[in-house]
């Protein structure tokens, strides 16, 4: 079992797309190390040959009829978006380089 350093937390925040502040890093590193310490207790359980449970209700491949249903009107969906243009979501540029 390992613990979480400030650097680890910064890396994880970057992976999770969270632009955390220095103050948050200080706070979270301490708190998360304590939480991790507590949850690491799962390692004490005798789990040899125990299968994992992903879901309380065992289900596989739930099917429904492939029927055409009306979808939401585009304007209703785009009304909730931070930015829309020409009937589509407008997003900031994706590539670093200028086109």
């Amino acid at each position, binding site marked *: *079992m*390992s613990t*979480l350093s400030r650097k*680890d*937390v910064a890396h*994880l*925040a*970057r*992976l*999770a*797309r*969270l*632009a*955390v*502040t220095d103050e*948050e890093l200080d*706070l*979270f590193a301490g*708190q*998360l190390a*304590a*939480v*991790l310490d*507590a*949850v*690491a*207790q*799962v*390692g*004490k*359980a005798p*789990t040899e040959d*125990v*299968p*994992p*449970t*992903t*879901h*309380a*209700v065992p*289900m596989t491949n*739930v099917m*429904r009829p492939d029927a055409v249903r009306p979808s*939401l*009107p585009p304007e*209703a*969906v785009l*009304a*909730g*978006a*931070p*930015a829309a243009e020409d009937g589509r*979501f407008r*997003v*900031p*540029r*994706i*590539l*670093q380089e200028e086109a």
Partner: protein
Amino acid sequence: MTSSSDITAMTVPELRAALKDGATVAGITEAYLDRIAADDETLGSYLHVGPEAALERAAVIDAAGTAGTGLAGIPIALKDVIVTRGIPTTSGSKILEGWTPPYDATVAARLKDAGTVLLGKTNMDEFAMGSSTENSAYRITRNPWDPERIPGGSSGGSSAAVAGGLAPWAIGTDTGGSIRQPAALTGLVGHKPTYGSVSRYGLIAFSSSLDQAGPMARTVLDAALLHEAIGGHDPLDSTSIDAPLPVLAEAARRGAGGDLSGLKVGVVRELGGEGHTDGYEPGVLARFAEAVALLESMGAEVREVSAPAFDLALSAYYLIAPSEASSNLARFDGVRFGLRVGDDGSHDLDEVMALTREQGFGPEVKRRIILGTYALSSGYYEAYYGQAQKVRTLISRDFSAAYADVDVLVSPTTPTVAFPLGARVDDPIAMYAADLCTLPASLAGVPAISVPCGLADGLPVGFQIMAPALADDRCYRVAAALEAAQDAARGHRFLDQLALRTATSAEGAA
């Protein structure tokens, strides 16, 4: 003529009788809106109230003449995690501030079809992550029993509204205890249904393998009636169980008859029993023991049951839930709904996402996303998330073994009564401990109810009854028996004590 305070103290069958007797939906709705206007600035139970929409809807139901049949004309409040078409829905987060959903959750749609009148959306911990409602990005909610204490969480807006007379009942959601714990701390009945028996379609997802919506009400029968209205198979939720709901209201009525002969009750040692009392308040354990004795006096056979894996439920839960949350909350990327920060031409999409999420999420949400990201990352997955899933199997096995010998399992709902505002908000581990007793049933997906079992230090104590999957009716039967026996001994309903106390202190102040 009934006064508005009489109206807001009524159970649902009483409201139904009043409606049949000539009361109007508009009058009842107005009585609740008046209480909200008078008290909610202090209580903080609602994030959105829609007085005009509620009164319009009330008028439509009055005109239709259906009021008093089924649930038609009964007001209701929904936790703000449930999406409602045309009505702001935030899940307690700034990242969804101002968002108006274009569709209804199945739970909301079923309640609408049943003729209920939506009063508003209730406060909650951000994305249902918390046990005190202090993680709401908007406001704190106070406990009607003591305004300096928390109402529980994450469905604390729903619990405070129903206990405080600001809604006759409400929908909450429970991922690790978020219906049962706030119900216990405010003197309500709260039931977490069998996982998959109430649709999750339109619930803003926190931890998909655990989330479940359910009723929060003033009586066991009210809770059963509300559960019957929302439950049952939904093709829009692929994890929905395609099986009929057990008959719940009838189970509650039968239970209230008080005959529990032949019922086998298991008291879980690991949840407040011998050698496991650390963190439990003596008052809570005393009320619990009295309630167990009461069940015995009604004919139940009580025995102690050991479920060793329950000791690891807290650890497993705080790995599984954050892991699923870190994945579910990836949808809040500033593209399709809600907040977008930094879209000024100088930042690319990745940076805008990170800035949006930084500003839009509160500290507990960030902590859980980071923890979940860690538990799922390569190199740590097996030791944390994978191991937690195996512990989940062990917990389910303990339940199965116990249910081979007993019909229901019981425990306190929470280790303590409502704690003071601010007491645990900076200490995640202490906050998580509030869910100690409710987590095993969540992880195993089995139904569990909390019903009041008295006061300790003047504050409500909850009694938890757990049953096998799809046997929710057992929870209602046993809870109703306990409620009826206690009401008979007390001479009035549990929540009447709150009204009496409020009246007394108001006289004192005057």
